[in-house]
């Protein structure tokens, strides 16, 4: 067992760090979007990703032939860690880079790859994910948005919901029903849809945070060329799952969790509780330490999974618990921040005496959204118990 990096990896880290120091734009820490679709903010974030791309730091794990550097998991981890440590702005093109890009690499046609991959990397085009529907959330396979193949085109009718970034996206990767007669998982296709296509309308949905962070998207007789199909017709579920199974680099996000914890610790040192620093209050210390222990457990848990991946081992049950544990941990960290702040914790960002630019009530709410999104904690527990522990699957409803 050895936690140190090789000299080459250390050198790589230092190069990345130096590059970021020279290029990360100055900004406020953890600043929430004021208006999620604010064009100037979007422009700023696209420019940042472009800068990152020109520096060679976007999707470094992608094969060189598709615009990546062909670098390994360790280097990807290092870049993710350094991006968080440098408080770099978010990657507005993350959906493209993490989800649809790898899907096209694995399942796309040469034409699709050539058309889309470079623009995904440079953030010239922004993607949104058309998965959930009002009647298909946890039960995604129940989706109903219909794509009828008519000659060389699909005619798409239906509705998507919770579509982050739809209001600024250029393209959507969309799961549609192409065979309503087949069992539900087998009648789904994966389509690439140009958001400028006539018949598409986007309606923002406001989250409890006050931001219009996601949207409803309506499709009325939207024509999508057949060549925008990814994978085989009615094979969309498998295509989508392969992307979900694509290895997410956990270590980037445990660094973010550590940064959040550091923020709460800073708060505890500077805020007073009953007349003395909160960090001297034994109850606060207990809660901080309990969180710190969970944070570090997840950090080493990630390192263990990273090592398993480097050794070519199949992910075990450990991989299944990541989302469940991390999202709940992040929410608990934000909750402690509010406790430490007391009444100050409820001030809105516009209040004159707001602390930390109001990021903590925002994070407290936003992190609850992350517990629900991407597979709720309850679904994660089903997955862990069923796929991880081999316990019996849930009984289905009568019509399933």
């Amino acid at each position, binding site marked *: *067992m050895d936690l140190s990096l090789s000299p080459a990896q250390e050198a790589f880290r230092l190069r990345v760090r130096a590059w970021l120091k020279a290029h990360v734009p100055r900004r406020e820490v953890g600043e929430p979007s004021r208006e999620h679709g604010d064009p100037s903010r979007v422009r700023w974030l696209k420019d940042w990703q472009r800068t990152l791309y020109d520096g060679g730091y976007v999707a470094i794990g992608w094969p060189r032939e598709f615009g990546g550097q062909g670098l390994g998991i360790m280097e990807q981890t290092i870049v993710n860690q350094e991006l968080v440590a440098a408080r770099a702005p978010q990657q507005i093109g993350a959906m493209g880079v993490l989800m649809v890009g790898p899907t096209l690499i694995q399942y796309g046609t040469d034409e699709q790859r050539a058309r889309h991959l470079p623009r995904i990397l440079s953030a010239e085009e922004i993607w949104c994910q058309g998965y959930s529907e009002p009647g298909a959330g946890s039960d995604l396979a129940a989706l109903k948005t219909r794509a009828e193949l008519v000659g060389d085109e699909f005619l798409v009718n239906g509705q998507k919901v919770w579509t982050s970034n739809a209001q600024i996206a250029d393209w959507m990767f969309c799961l549609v029903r192409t065979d309503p007669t087949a069992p539900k998982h087998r009648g789904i296709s994966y389509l690439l849809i140009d958001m400028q296509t006539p018949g598409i309308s986007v309606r923002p949905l406001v989250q409890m945070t006050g931001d219009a962070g996601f949207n409803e998207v309506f499709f009325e007789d939207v024509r999508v060329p057949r060549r925008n199909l990814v994978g085989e017709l009615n094979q969309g579920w498998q295509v989508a799952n392969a992307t979900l199974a694509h290895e997410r680099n956990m270590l980037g996000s445990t660094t973010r969790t550590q940064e959040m914890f550091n923020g709460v610790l800073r708060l505890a040192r500077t805020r007073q509780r009953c007349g003395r620093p909160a960090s001297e209050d034994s109850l606060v210390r207990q809660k901080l330490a309990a969180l710190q222990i*969970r944070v570090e457990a997840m950090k080493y848990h990630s390192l263990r999974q990273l090592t398993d991946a*480097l*050794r070519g081992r199949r992910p075990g*049950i450990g991989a299944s618990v990541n989302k*469940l544990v991390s999202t709940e941990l992040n929410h608990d960290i934000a909750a402690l921040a509010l406790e430490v702040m007391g009444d100050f914790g409820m001030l809105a960002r516009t209040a004159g005496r707001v602390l930390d630019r109001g990021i903590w009530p925002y994070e407290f709410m936003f992190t609850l959204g992350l517990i629900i999104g991407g597979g709720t904690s309850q679904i994660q527990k089903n997955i862990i*118990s069923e796929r991880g522990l081999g316990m019996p699957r849930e009984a289905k409803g009568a019509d399933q």
Partner: protein
Amino acid sequence: MDFGLSPDQELLQRSAAEFLAAECPPALVREVATSEDGVPRALYGKMAALGWLGLIVPEKFGGAGLGMLDLALLCEPIGASVVPGPFFSSAVLATLALLHGGSAAQKTHWLPRLAAGDAFGALALLEESDWLAGAGVVARARQRGAGKSGTGKSSSGKSSTGKSSTEWTLSGTKLFVLDAHVADVLIAAFRTGGRGEDGVTLFLVPRDAPGVEVLPLPSVDVTRRLAEVRFTQVEVPAAAVLGAPGAGWRTLARVLDGAAVALAADSLGGAQRAFDMAVAYCGVRQQFGRTIGSFQAIKHMAAEMASEIEPARALLWYAGYAADALPRQAPRAASMAKACLGDVYSRVVNRAVQMHGGIGFTWEHDLHFWFKRAKWNELAYGDVAWHRERVAALSKY
């Protein structure tokens, strides 16, 4: 960067688990629970032959010369099988005390015996206050040697010729001494002067020394034997001092960090075993026409337990690794592991008992051995809150 076990380490764990599955089944634990001294001698003979009792004893003293991570990896299957007897006392506590505080002569005398299983050791630290700190050591050791006033300050105990000649008289009562009743040597902490951590001295005391009285303190955890040990004017020679007089806490700090890691590892193994037993049971027990494992409430409990155990395992590995390779991080890492696993084992085994329903609550079913061991592990050598506060202090909150 390689945060994984070596092939040797994986083999150690695998073979230990296989060995214990055969040699220390729950039936043995149950039998030994009511035996005279709670030591399965045949098992310990085999453990010694496997090198387990001297795992961290240097090779020149007859041990395997391995590290704290290896020891932790061995403690895990031991905890999984709730192995009774003085493994923790001898192979962890006493061995660490000798390694970190012993003179060459003391190491030469005791380490080979401990490693071979020819002698057992026990640590006598806590007193009535149950205060795991230097200030908790109140029992006095008074000097007897020529020309010494014998009170107040830490003393090197050296005579004018530079040779240590002070002899000591030990008086006081130690509580919660694990395995005192079978120990050949007690490693006992007495105050020779000073306050707090300063002025605590460790002594090697034969159990059969005149004035030493061992009174059993039966524990709810029947896999562990505790004792009250009364020292009434026990006379020991200068050579009985382990480390320098007054500097015993330096050694004890290392012992306590090692104890934390070892108990955390025992807890990890126990938690995993209790969890496995529960999941297995849920796969066979039927109610309402289906296995109870098909009910979502049960599935979710199992998922939550698994989600706690896996990250805890990684944290334990880190603590073991830090004990060997990151001395500045080791104390904090040890406390993180103990706080985490003390909590996890107790909660996991609580759920495991509930998943078994009524039979999980019986004496006849084995699970209560794990349930009680979990609680002892949680409370002993620093409970969850104690170690969390230590994490806070070491992190300089």
